[in-house]
């Protein structure tokens, strides 16, 4: 996928500016800025609890009751949704923007036939008759790679495997051809071979329709396979963002470098144990002063403990931004 294929003046379907969300005083999302352009896949990566899902839920307008947006703007297809009423958001969800997540089996209504759930998603946004909706749903089941769509249409979720449920979820999310799809760890619950199939499917479908894909994951292997661009998140902030190729070639934040070290080596008996980064994710209510990564950072110096580094572009590559005082020295980390 070419990132620069479209005119730069055309606004990306999803733009997030300076988004902040807090839960009980903890800044779980802190000044996040993010664009996902048409046809592009942006991977949002980071360890558990760094605020990836909260960012996604804020975009969907579906934060849990305890979470509050402090500021920032979210624009979906050009309109600012941060000030929009819930009913207006309801019209966007499923039509312009959709989200799928981890639990494919329990994400489908156990009492509704698979086909009815796809038809419902379509009819809640489109004025077409039942027959046309049915045909569209069956075609969609076929497009997500489920054999014998007519039969599957009439089945209940419990008659389907996990991988197939995930395909149905994708079918429901994409039936209205939304401009943006958010996938929050869509394959974590599935086994490795199915995982790869589902990722391939998502890539094929979003390429076909030019859907902007925001892919949330903590698996750097998935990032390497799928992403055009990567945004690395740590403790509520974006600490590095760059085109995928540039990021894998050279990291400008120590956290990214260490994350890359966690890609499991696929040798011998399949997956080896996931190496992890030393130290623990900080408590969001008692964040370290200065750079939030300093307690775990091999490069940390006195300045890091006092001043938080701003997100800044690399001198030789304006598309490669990172928030580190010693961005040029990241390559020294073994």
């Amino acid at each position, binding site marked *: 996928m070419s990132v620069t294929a479209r005119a730069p003046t055309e606004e990306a379907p999803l733009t997030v500016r300076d988004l902040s969300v807090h839960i009980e005083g903890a800044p779980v999302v802190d000044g996040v800025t993010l664009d996902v352009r048409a046809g592009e896949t942006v991977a949002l990566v980071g360890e558990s609890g760094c605020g990836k899902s909260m960012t996604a839920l804020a975009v*969907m307008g*579906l934060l849990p*009751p305890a979470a509050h947006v402090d500021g920032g703007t979210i624009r979906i297809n050009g309109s600012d949704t941060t000030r929009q009423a819930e*009913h207006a958001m*309801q*019209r*966007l*969800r*499923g*039509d312009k923007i*959709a*989200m*799928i*997540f*981890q*639990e*494919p*089996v*329990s*994400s*489908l*209504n*156990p*009492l*509704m036939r698979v086909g009815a759930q796809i038809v*419902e*998603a379509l009819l*809640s*946004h489109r004025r077409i008759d039942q027959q046309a909706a049915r045909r569209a749903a069956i075609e969609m089941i076929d497009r997500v790679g489920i054999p014998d769509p007519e039969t599957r249409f009439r089945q*209940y*979720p*419990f*008659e*389907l*495997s*996990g991988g197939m449920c995930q395909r149905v*979820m994708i079918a*429901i*999310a994409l039936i209205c051809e939304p401009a943006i799809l958010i996938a929050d760890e869509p394959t974590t*619950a*599935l*086994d490795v071979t199915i995982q790869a199939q589902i990722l391939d499917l998502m890539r094929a479908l979003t390429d076909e329709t030019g859907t902007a894909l925001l892919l949330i994951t903590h698996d750097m292997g998935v990032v390497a396979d799928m992403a055009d661009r990567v945004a690395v998140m740590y403790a509520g902030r974006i600490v590095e963002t760059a085109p995928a190729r540039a990021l894998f070639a050279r990291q400008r934040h120590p956290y990214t470098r260490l994350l890359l070290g966690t890609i499991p080596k696929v040798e011998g008996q399949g997956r080896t144990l996931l190496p992890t980064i030393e130290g623990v994710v900080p408590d969001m209510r008692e964040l370290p002063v200065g750079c939030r990564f300093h307690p775990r950072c091999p490069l940390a110096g006195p300045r890091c403990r006092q001043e938080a580094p701003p997100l800044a572009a690399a001198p030789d590559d304006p598309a490669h931004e990172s928030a580190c005082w010693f961005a040029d020295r990241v390559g020294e980390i073994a």
Partner: protein
Amino acid sequence: MSAPLPPPAGASRPVRRIDRRLIPVLPFIAVFLLFAIVALFAPWLAPQNPYSQDLLGRLRPPGDVVRGTAYLLGTDELGRDLLSRVIYGARVSMLVATLSVVVSLVIGVALGMLAALFRGAIEILIMRIVDVFLSIPPILLAIITVAVLGPGLINVVLVLALTRWPRYARVAFGQTLSLVNQPYVRFARHIGNSTPRLLWRHILPNIVGPITVVATLEFGLMVLFEAGLSFLGLGVQPPMASWGSTLNVGRNYVATAWWIALFPGLCLFLLILSVNLIGDYLRDRLDPTSKR
């Protein structure tokens, strides 16, 4: 979470087998249906007019024939055919129980679901009222309300509806609360379902099981409450026939005309027993939260 969920209660399975626990309940389902049919077709089934008195044929024992008319269950203190009165009594019982269950169910389920969906002040308001209602002994609550509204069939229904909805509200609240955080309800929201649609299409169908169980057990209670209120003279008013008021009359004649109390009492017992056994069966079958 990739393990397939067990098929949910109520979903149609590919293969239907008769549940073995159903067999001992079948006779009670038959008894219940019999009462339902009797109630529906009372005017055609009753051999006599339940209101016509025969002062010369008072307190006749079952099977007695007075001037060519057979009184299968005997006559009451005013010479009215007891069988016909019991048949019309079934009509009152079933009518009051059905109406009050339906009305209180609708009120309770709606309020319980709203409380769980919106939480906050709405939840506090609704669920506090529920707590208060549920802490008052039910028959006492009913008696107090009748004292305010006055007796009569419509009022009995009103009273029961107004005092019994909290039980449905509590069940609907708990069930909805556990469902709104289920991935499929979250997903339904993520693809743009409106709140009413979410409640109607995705939550309600998944809580019918437990609600049905409560409704069945409540139905038995409502039959009992109607009889109790009528027994106390607070329910349906004479000359309308109710098992409760007939029982009360029969109380004065147990020594001389035992049948007046026996037959309505027996009907009451049979109906409530069957409803409760059906309810127990449904609970085992439909309510995943009560593993006994």
